[in-house]
């Protein structure tokens, strides 16, 4: 255990939707350069956790700190400027805009054209399909391609921290593998990743550490290898034995 302060930290974070509390005070620490995965069933609060970090929902208690500074009072567009980008649940690509326009929007806060061209080049190496379909409307892409676009769009903002919400949802197994390979490669390029997933096995295989959520609480946190080997996790999220 290092005693340096964490890169991104959620401290006793609470979120309410009306009168219903969705997060009952969760604490998460993410170190620079890690892939941290958040696992859990539907409704456990995983997506809420990510939307709270990116400022789309406001916490009702606790705090969010990035590089030691509080995030939770900032509007979403300021969070993006600080270097935290979010590929949301359900992809949410702009369907009636072209792939190119979607990518340009991902780089909305970045004004350096040369830098943007360099990132675009890297994105096309990660996801060559996007280059082939650059002038197509995003709504005409397949599910897997839309997922690639959603991740690529978040990368255009040159994130320090990338929030990924269910990148494998609804994709064929072969595509899931390729998406997870890409996530690992993104991480190796220095981007810290927070990965929310229902596909626990695939997520734990690439993650450094994991948190398990149940109904708005963190019930377990450990190194990814330990979670993979944990019988409770296996029973609940990995569908029994390997």
């Amino acid at each position, binding site marked *: 255990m290092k005693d340096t302060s964490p890169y991104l930290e959620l401290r006793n974070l609470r979120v309410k939707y009306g009168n219903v509390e969705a997060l009952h005070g969760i604490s998460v620490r993410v170190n620079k350069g890690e892939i941290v995965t958040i696992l859990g069933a539907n409704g456990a609060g995983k997506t809420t956790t990510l939307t709270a970090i990116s400022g789309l929902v406001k916490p009702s208690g606790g705090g969010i700190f990035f590089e030691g500074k509080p995030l939770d009072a900032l509007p*979403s567009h300021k969070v*993006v400027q600080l270097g935290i*980008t979010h590929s949301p649940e359900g992809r949410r690509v702009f369907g009636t805009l072209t792939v190119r326009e979607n990518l340009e929007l991902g780089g909305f806060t970045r004004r350096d054209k040369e830098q943007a061209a360099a990132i675009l080049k890297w994105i096309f190496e990660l996801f060559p399909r996007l280059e082939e379909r650059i002038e197509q409307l995003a709504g005409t892409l397949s599910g897997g391609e839309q997922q690639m676009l959603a991740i690529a769009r978040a990368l255009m903002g040159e994130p320090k921290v990338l929030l990924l919400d269910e990148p494998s949802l609804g994709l064929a197994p072969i595509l899931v593998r390729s998406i997870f390979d890409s996530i690992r490669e993104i991480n190796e390029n220095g981007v810290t990743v927070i990965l929310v997933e229902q596909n626990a096995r695939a997520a734990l295989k690439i993650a450094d550490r994991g948190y398990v959520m149940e109904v708005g609480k963190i019930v377990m946190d450990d190194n990814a290898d330990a979670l993979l080997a944990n019988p409770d996790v296996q029973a609940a999220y990995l569908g029994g034995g390997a």
Partner: protein
Amino acid sequence: MEEFLQQLTNGLAVGGIYALIALGYTMVYGILRLINFAHGDLFTLGAYFGLTLLISLGLADHLNGLAVGGVLIVMAMGLVAVVGWLLERVAYRPLRDSDRLAAVVSALGASIFFSNAIMLVYGPRSQVYPSGILPSAAFPLFGVEVPVMRFLMFGGSALLMCLLYWFIHKTRVGTAIRAVAIDQDAAKLMGINVNSIIALIFLIGPALGGAAGVMVGLYYGQITYDMGFSFGLKAFTAAILGGIGNIPGAMLGGILLGVIEAMGAAYISIAWKDAIAFAVLILILIFRPTGLLGERVADKV
């Protein structure tokens, strides 16, 4: 042939005005799902600002007619844009997260406020733009003498629409506007300040409406404090006709409505002019509720 060409050019001139106003309705609806009922009154305000500027600056003494028209339009656009921005700040932003009906009522209230404010300042009687600013000459088109003014009207509105189209489709901020119209939360995650985009929409839409106001003053000569109601209703019809929320739709709808109205007045009966325009609205709502180019339906308002 003579009658047809006269009515066609007249319809295009008026249709261009409808289209300019319709753009304001459709852009606000596209972003906020709100019908800005005060928009017609911002158009009226443009006409009155134009008149005041024209008289107080004595522009007509120094410049030729076309330049006067251009300068007036640009200045009125700027002033009405400021009023539109204030309107959003005062009447709509505080209600952004409340019930949708509250914003609609606020819009109706703003409309009543503006038309009454104009009446208090300028009086209830109609006001007259000095005549002879724009050339009254006629231009021979296929052997028919058509007033040059109609070409100027249509040309002016077409120019503004081309500029808007270019801005929305070819610039970075324009792309951001389209993104906000599609999915506000996703747009926020791109780092777009949605509040600024909404404020920008309330600068651009009213500016176009203000331009239309000056053009109506120059074209018809006479303006009234309540003309925003009838022009606003027609332009709203045009926005629905083209598909509300859709920018090219508003342009197409405005021009079509202007031509249909002019043709109807000429070949059916002038007394039925408004009835024909609104019959078009009813038919569209029954048979193609999304409008000619639209995908979205106006609901609940």
